């Protein structure tokens, strides 16, 4: 029984791992193929099945005039917009989350939980509902088709995530820690920056990770709010038409586009296992 259980466990883990990794392997091998290898039937093992070529990767950095796909500019646009918006969202979101967790707000029937829900409700709405107001709003302040405009919109989209995660996190940090900091001579700002924040690094990293992921993969708003001047990576990749752009270039650009997320995942995994608050309160 024990053995069967163990077998089943590893079987399913292996199955799932293959299921998840297979498309990446497929994309990876395809990105090193040329026309003959792609059309010559299913081949997977480089140097045995097919001769690896760097053509697919070279195309990525060539200018369109030389037959390249030019994803460098959209790539850095995406990086810039995602990172800036995530950073601002985390800073603002952490501050508001701390306030929501520690202080009592009351305006008529609106209380802390209602404010928190108001933040989260921004994510509950279908994006299509938000698209027209965003479009009109950006148009009114002349920020359509600009990086700044996209950053503003992404802050609206990402900050609720940061607030949501951090409120939950701060609620788990015992209030007595802040109080001890006050008693030990910190004013409320010092208590926050010297004591609460250093103990919230795991929360900050999780919140940051979610912001980066949601910012990076967003296609909808990037598509609606930009036209010709500015292009983000998801929009660019969708625009690569497979009948014009060869499979190997598509594979290479797909891999390049998920690379940041893979790096983020590795960093996060390190941090999450390291930090914990168990020593604060037993």
């Amino acid at each position, binding site marked *: 029984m024990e053995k069967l259980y163990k077998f089943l466990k590893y079987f399913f883990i292996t199955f799932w791992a293959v299921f998840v990794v297979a498309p990446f392997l497929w994309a990876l091998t395809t990105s090193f193929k040329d026309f003959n290898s792609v059309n010559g039937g299913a081949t997977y093992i480089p140097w045995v099945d097919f001769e690896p070529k760097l053509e697919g990767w070279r195309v990525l950095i060539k200018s369109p005039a030389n037959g390249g796909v030019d994803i460098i500019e959209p790539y850095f646009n995406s990086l810039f917009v995602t990172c800036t918006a995530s950073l601002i969202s985390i800073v603002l979101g952490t501050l508001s989350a701390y306030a929501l967790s520690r202080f009592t707000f009351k305006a008529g029937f609106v209380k802390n939980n209602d404010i928190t829900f108001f933040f989260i409700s921004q994510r509950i709405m279908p994006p299509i509902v938000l698209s027209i107001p965003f479009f009109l709003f950006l148009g009114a302040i002349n920020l359509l088709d600009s990086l700044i405009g996209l950053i503003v919109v992404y802050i609206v989209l990402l900050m609720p995530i940061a607030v949501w995660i951090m409120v939950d996190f701060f609620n788990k940090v015992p209030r007595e820690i802040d109080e001890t900091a*006050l008693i*030990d*001579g910190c004013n409320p700002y010092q208590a926050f920056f010297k004591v609460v924040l250093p103990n919230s690094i795991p929360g900050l990293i999780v919140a940051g990770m979610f912001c980066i992921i949601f910012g990076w993969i967003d296609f909808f708003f990037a598509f609606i709010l930009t036209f010709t001047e500015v292009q983000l990576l998801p929009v660019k990749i969708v625009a690569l038409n497979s009948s014009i752009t060869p499979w190997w270039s598509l594979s290479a650009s797909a891999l390049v586009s998920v690379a940041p997320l893979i790096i983020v995942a590795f960093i996060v995994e390190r941090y999450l296992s390291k930090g914990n608050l168990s*020593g604060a309160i037993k």
Partner: protein
Amino acid sequence: MNLVAENLCYKPDDQYHLNDVSFNFKKGNIYTILGRTLSGKTTLLKTIAGLLTPDTGEIQFEEKDFLKVPVWERNIAMVYQQFINYPHLNVFENVAFPLKQRKVKDQEINNVVMKSLKSVGLEGYENRKIQELSGGQQQRVSLARSLVKNAKILLLDEPLVNLDYKLREQLREEFKNIFSQGLSEESIVIFSTTDPKEAMELNGEVIVLDEGKVLQFGPAKEIFENPKTLRVAEISNDPPMNILKASIESNQIIFEGIKVQIPNHLSNLDIKNFNLGIRASDIELNDNGFEFEVELAEISGSETLLHLKRGNSKIITSIEEVMNFNIHDKVKINFNTNKAYVFDENEILASSPFGGSYV
């Protein structure tokens, strides 16, 4: 130069957490706040610390309006019952934190912190992480951190309650030593606890708090010998003092069909019906005694607590040895009425074996 509070009230919801609390604490003394859970002990400590602002009332310290001084400028120290430390700092940094905050020179911090760690028995643990320490050690770290500041007011909120029995005994001893050596004549120690034994052992002044109200304020000995009301007698004894409805008829005290001789100290009593209070330790097993039925027997440490019943009356007695009883066993007990208290119908002390009376 004292810590003076006048008419402190705090009522955040429909219940008083502090109800007209006044006191005058003198420097160089230990004060114990004794009360059951939710009696307002923590609220009172937090109010003194400045973490809570009372609805009404005043606190003065060194002739200044203390309520106008923000927490971080009050020069107080506080130890919580939940072992609060800074998890991101190691033991040394935890203890050094308040000094760094005051911008004390590194060399001096080093000396003071080491001395403080030594006094709580944590020498050699400087570089440990807080998470690696046991509960008792964590509580010592927070104690060391509160001692290092040389605070004028040291607040200890049930610091021993979350520790196991052995450690509690040990740390309680150490507290007494630390308080007697480490603290100057300039500071006030305020210790809150639910355990009457702790209050008696620290032997300072005791404030009995219940539902936010101060029931009695006086030296520990006085509280033990002459509890002002029935409620104080309950709170300041563990197990709580047994209370029996009794009356006097023809020179005998009668309760639950039991008749006993009036002891000397009650011979001048001029009330007919009253509440008779007898401590659990003043009841003993005796074959010539009165029959009671066992409801529950619990062994705690080296003594046995017997919950007994007769008619409508329930009493608890503690026996100084480990014995086994079954539920519904009949046992015979005798009352040491020389140590009996009498509370009148308003539950105020009318007579005590130590001569006190508040009627």
